[in-house]
């Protein structure tokens, strides 16, 4: 499984023991004893998930969640909570947390949630790379080809496009062929999918 588990807990024993479970199952783990250390140790490009103790000295888990969002870190966050932290958990979920686990955590539960979070993050990364690819391909088109693409996506025929842009239908066909080649698409349907991805987000 790709991605790193960013594990944060101020209690040394809890931090090390949870890290042991994750790494024993073959996961890459990076352990931090404070929210500040986590913020210094990850960025928007980091892949994986975050397992974050909700009670931390200094910056606590909820504040860290806000700062991570501001810094564009989109990895899913699983909160670790103690007894009587129900309200904190609710706030965390409302702020977009992926899940929360109550200590003591069963290894199977921890692993299941972590894998699910990593999956989610991988899909997120996949979508992100597909979008980047689409943008890159669309960027190769000349201004004239982009005009032709816009008409094509609106369902216009070659004749209609030629008339609209003041070109010969033959020229339009050449542009159409070049667009399909540059975008590595086999049909206008595929082109429209690519366009949607390239203009998303």
């Amino acid at each position, binding site marked *: 499984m790709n991605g790193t588990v960013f594990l944060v807990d101020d*209690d040394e*024993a*809890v931090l090390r*023991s949870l890290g042991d*479970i994750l790494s*024993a199952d073959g996961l890459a783990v990076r352990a931090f004893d404070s929210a500040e250390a986590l913020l210094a140790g990850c960025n928007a490009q980091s892949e994986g998930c975050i397992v974050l103790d909700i009670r931390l000295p200094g910056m606590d888990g909820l504040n860290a969640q806000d700062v991570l969002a501001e810094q564009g870190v989109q990895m899913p966050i699983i909160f670790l909570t*103690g*007894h009587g932290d129900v309200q904190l958990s609710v706030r965390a979920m409302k702020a977009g947390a992926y899940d929360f686990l109550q200590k003591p955590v069963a*290894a199977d539960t921890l692993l299941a949630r972590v894998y699910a979070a990593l999956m989610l993050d991988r899909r997120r990364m996949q979508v992100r790379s597909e979008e980047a690819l689409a943008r890159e391909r669309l960027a190769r088109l000349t201004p004239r080809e982009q005009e032709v693409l816009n008409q094509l996506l609106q369902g216009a025929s070659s004749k209609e496009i030629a008339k609209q842009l003041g070109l010969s239908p033959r020229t339009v066909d050449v542009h159409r062929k070049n667009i399909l080649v540059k975008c590595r698409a086999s049909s206008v349907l595929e082109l429209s999918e690519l366009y949607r991805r390239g203009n998303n987000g």
Partner: protein
Amino acid sequence: MNAAINQTKALSEALNRINVTLHSTLDFHEVAQRLLSEGSRALGSETAAILLRDDAGWQISDVFRMPLGMVDTPVTDQEVQHAVLAIQSRQIVAIDDALHDPRVNREHVRQYNIRAVLAAPLIARNEIIGVMFFNYHAGPHVFTEPEVHFAQQLATTAAIALDNARLFDERLRVEKALRASEQRLHLALDAADMGIWDWDMLTDSVLWNEKHFSLFGVDPASFTNQVSEAFSVLHPDDRERVQASVQQALTQQEPFYTEFRVVHPDESVHWIASKGQQVKGVPGDPLRMIGICFDITERKHAEQERERYLHQENIAQMHRLHIAGEFAALLAHQLNQPLSAIRSFAEAGLVRLRHATDTPERSAQAFNDIVAQSERAAQSIRDLRQFLARQPQAMTAADLNAHVRSASGLMSVLARSYAIRVSLDLSKSLPLALMRPSQIEQVVINLMENAIDAIRLSSAMNAAVTDTLGGKMKGTIQIATLLDPELNELVVTVRDSGPGLDAEAAKRVFDPLYTTKENGIGMGLTISRSIVEVHGGRIWAKAGSGGCFKFTLPVVTTP
């Protein structure tokens, strides 16, 4: 006929003589003796006696020429049936020949060898006192008209004289008893340190005994006896209340009891209890009120002391319960961490076994970790139990500086090991404060621990500061004591060179579970707060750069 006239004259003279002599005394037996002897002489009887009659029967009261041993002997109605007859008829019963007269008891006259007898009833104020006997032993005696008449008059005089003497005796006895009773009362009141007051409500003047003056701190020589002056000695806060309870006692017609303070000329305050009751002249019209009062200062102080103690114990108990609740939360948190770690270390081992990646070294490490964590949990429980089991020490007036010194001495050793310098700035000659010394030391230790942790946390980020002594020190802790004369309390300040707290943290830092530390969970400060509040003080943190904690203790005030 001449003889009869002479006898009448002689008897009348005798009666006058007896009347005169009776005036010279009021003693009952003396009166009785004169009556019997003079009567006997006038009547020519050999012996005479007076028997008194009461509900119990007859009793020989006085005798003339008869054995004195007879006095106080009880006699039955049967024995003296002629006396009973005299009383019932209210007439003289004259027995000329006792041996042959059916009106007398044969046995009786034989026993005393009575040959003739004259029984005169003694009746005064329509009340039967008894009977006077004049006995003849030589032979029968024919009673003449003048003799019977004389006896009649003598009996009347005798009854009045004896009645007077009896009343006088009674009065003497009552007076003597009263005097003795009064004397006993005074002795008892004196022994009990009781004041007596007698309030004449018509003139509004009051009489006091000696003790009352000393209780009220009033000079007897200058006292005007006015009730208003008596009230002026009362503590101003108590005057209205006492007046109201007197008023209520008067309107409700009931005894009154009240407690109040009096202020002596030397401004000392004494608690007095006063009990009184009205003495009625005309029914329903209160004329006098009489009562006693006594000093209850010691009892009052004991009561107040006890109330203060109970109040303090209540607060302490409430705090103990409050702390117990907080501890339950703390314990849950403190145990959850190691339990959580134990489970995870064990499960990590299971995961490795599942993947066949476990090694003996790795397993040993996991088991060691588990042992260490269970020891950590046990230690938490031990610490908590030790804290809860601590016996509450007695409150004593103690020197705050001495205990700050002893607590800081302990912690300075720890501070030095982290290159932290501890300095004391203790105000000289502080007044004593009421405290449980070991608890106050605990507060100072907690605050210092807190300061050391704050400095250690920040020292990693900050460059070492140079100590005034020239050595490289990571930080300083300063402890100061001073007296706030306005609030009359002692203030202890613990400052540190750590990062300090922002306004939010300063507010929350005493909450249970709140912490800015890595290891602690804010227990020390929560405990400190409870201790200080039980002592009637306050504890707070000041926001700003550099840690600053303060707590106060009220100064001992002499009651």
